């Protein structure tokens, strides 16, 4: 009887533990599922809040920080239409979450992709005057991301979009961007179910690949 009781306590305890981590995965999966559907500024702001609550409760996980940063970043782009200073403040928030994530996972390829992406966000303030400072940094971070994980399709994807939007004179344009998109598309094909890990970029890659191939014809 005593043993049964002890076993029960243990089971209850382990149940509590697994309930804890289930709670984490459940909350994350729910928020990530929502992230895959949202498009508007208030939605991104709300999701950034949701992820940052999870991040605050799980100080050892880099993923909630990653998604907090990612949501702030996505909120920053539409904010430029309202007021550049708000967009820049939001990018500061994105950077702050990313910095914390990098402390937890300093060798995570996805975090360097995100770092490059945040810098692209900063570039939007004034591409003409910021280009000189930011372009080498963007390529530097994307290079590091690819080195840490050659199978990460988001690195060539961002490389492609950046190159596509760069003036031809500086080595940009559709033709130069094409190989990056092709590489990204191939890597996305290989990418299996990622669970909670970042998996954005596939649709956009196919979209740009189509666009770039069309302009080539």
């Amino acid at each position, binding site marked *: 009887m005593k043993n049964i009781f002890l076993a029960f306590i243990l089971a209850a305890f382990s149940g509590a533990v697994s309930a804890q981590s289930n709670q984490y995965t459940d909350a994350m999966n729910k928020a990530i599922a929502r992230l895959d559907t949202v498009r508007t500024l208030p939605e991104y702001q709300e999701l950034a809040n949701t992820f*940052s609550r999870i991040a605050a409760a799980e100080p050892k996980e880099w993923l909630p920080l990653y998604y907090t940063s990612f949501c702030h970043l996505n909120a920053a782009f539409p904010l430029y239409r309202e007021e550049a200073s708000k967009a820049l403040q939001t990018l500061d928030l994105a950077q702050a979450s990313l910095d914390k994530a990098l402390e937890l996972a300093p060798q995570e390829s996805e975090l360097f992709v995100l770092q490059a992406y945040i810098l692209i966000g900063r570039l939007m303030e004034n591409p003409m005057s910021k280009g000189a400072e930011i372009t080498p940094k963007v390529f530097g971070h994307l290079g590091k991301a690819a080195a840490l994980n050659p199978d990460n399709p988001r690195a060539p994807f961002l490389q492609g979009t950046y190159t596509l939007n760069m003036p031809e*004179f*500086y080595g940009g344009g559709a033709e130069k961007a094409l190989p990056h998109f092709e590489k990204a598309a191939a890597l996305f094909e290989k990418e299996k179910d990622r669970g909670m890990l970042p998996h954005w970029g596939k649709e956009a890659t196919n979209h740009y690949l189509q666009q770039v191939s069309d302009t080539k014809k």
Partner: protein
Amino acid sequence: MRTFLFLLLLLPAIFSSAQTRLEGDVLSTRGDTLFGANIWIVGSYDGATSDLHGSFSFETAAKGAQTLLITYLGCDTFRQALSLNGGLLALHPRLKESASALQEVVISAGSFEAASDRRRAVVLRPVDIALTASATADIAGAIATLPGTTRNGESGKILVRGGAAYETRTFIDGLYVQNPYNSSVPNVPARNRFSPFLFKGTQFSTGGYSAEYGQALSSALILHTEDLAPSTTTGLSLMSVGEGLSHTQRWERSSLAVSGSYTNLSPYFLLVPQQIDWLSAPQSGGGEIIFRQQTRGDGIFKTYVSGTRSWMEMRYPSFDDPQETLPLRLRAGNLYSNISYRGILAGKWALFAGGAYTYNRDRVASFFEHDEKQQSGQFRFTLARAAGEHVKVKFGAEQLLGRFDEFYRGEDSSAYSTLRDERYTAGFAETDLYFSSKFVARVGIRGEYSALLDRGNLAPRVSAAYILGKNEQIAFAAGQFYQTPEYQLLRYNTDLQFERATHYMINYQRIRDGFTFRAEVYHKRYAQLAKTPPGGGPASSNGRGYASGLDLFFRDLKTIRNGDYWISYSYLDTKRDYRDFPGLATPTFAARHNASIVYKQWFPGLNTAFGATYSFQSPRPYNDPNRPGFNQMRTPAYHDLSINASYLTNLWGNFTILYVSATNLPGFEQVYGYQFGEEAGADGTFPSRAITPPARHFLFVGLFINFGKRYRASETTKEDL
């Protein structure tokens, strides 16, 4: 056992009944609705985001003593202890604006910033200096397109709000620059000694500036040097006026740049006829070394050394005999060096410590001979920190040792020399007080002592800014400013007062989405200006004067795609009694109206940047000794239209810029004033001569090649020009 199981089955029910519902609205302490605030229970995932009305509502399974946390961009994090026992809990949290948000209100009175610091109102970017058509990449030339300045073609120097050229002082990283301009002879315009590319930010203050800066009656031009060089590169410049070669090496935490240049205007003067009879066209040779070292813990250590030698020789017509010309030769040497460290001390104090040494010698030979040597060594430090959420303090001290050594031999071989040693010591303290996110005030005091004058002064300064609404604010500044009279006035007599100016100004500013509008009215009173008796002799401190005016500035980065323009206008009413003036009069360098339109356009398809500047200046006074009164005559109005173009290309795989510029394209007649002979001619009138630019146009062509930079070094944008 059954009972136990039964109890277990009940447990979830008990838990669920323990769910607490939290509801309420989030406002700021000022009563503004906060939309998008993050509200949650610490340690749980339970929380919500406030909606458009600041309302929120969520449920939590947490119970007992818990902490509610609310974060919102621009507010301090809000914490509240809660006891959760199920049921409904209504909350009305009020969030206080945080200091970091408060700092968005920036004191704008009297100050134009060309900072890369994006939080500040960027009015003029460093690249703008290079691309302003009338400036030909000269800092002073670009500043002359801003309101508050008066164009001065004959000297090329910056004159601000009725102040003479010496009243504007240049500071590099806070260190006073003894000779900011290249040596030149009268009526041949000088250029600023420093390339605009040395600086990441330019702060141009037309008055009311911080107690940190002294020894400037009218204006402070504050230049902040670049940190680490971005990349390793070698540059070659081939210009219509000379050549330059530079190499920059970048390491992980340090960088070194070495450059040399030689300019010679004689080939250019052969092609473009000049009104000056040059025996030897202006030539100069110089070199520069820039070193940067980043220390551990984000400090940065900087040194800069530059040396220049220049010479020119000309003949100019004599007043006494129009057939006769007089020789004039200038030989000049300058050495400028500085060293500084900026970093964090004890985790809290922002420390700056630096020193500078300057040596300058100008030797002029004509029918007279003048040899002037000026040296200065200085040391300075500042410490700044935040004291609590809403207060920032800054203080510092500096000492300057200067020597002025002059020798003069006249036509009649009479000679005299002056040797003046100065030991100048100053200290300052100031504090920024953020009363709310809308209102900031800066109060400061500066104390100075000059051993040369054997006098001290105390200069209080105050400024404030108040946000009227989104994107617009008003600001106010007032203060006292002291300056030691120029060495030349201390030749016979060092028992002079500090010259003094008192500034008052009110500023309105609106910045939104690429549009900037500023308006500023000011009044400035001068006292204790150095004054010399008629016919020469020891100076006294009886001079006085005033300047009042209105400055307007409008910039539009948005309307024209890939284009940008600004318009500035200054109205100035000024009179002074100083130097050899017989009484209150408007000085020759003051014009009532000054206006500029600066336009830039980037054509991506052509890889070309194009710029045009139109400047207007209303007539300036000059003194005609043939008529009664003083400074009673007026020059014609001044017009100028300058253009430039920069074409970006690759030359043998190396990034190359072809730059051309031309001043006064339509060929306007430009007269800066008139000079009169010392003695009346046979007909009893004083002979006169117009002061005009050395040539109607100044044309410049340059080819700048950056070796080792290819397309992948896509760090080449407009900014590299």
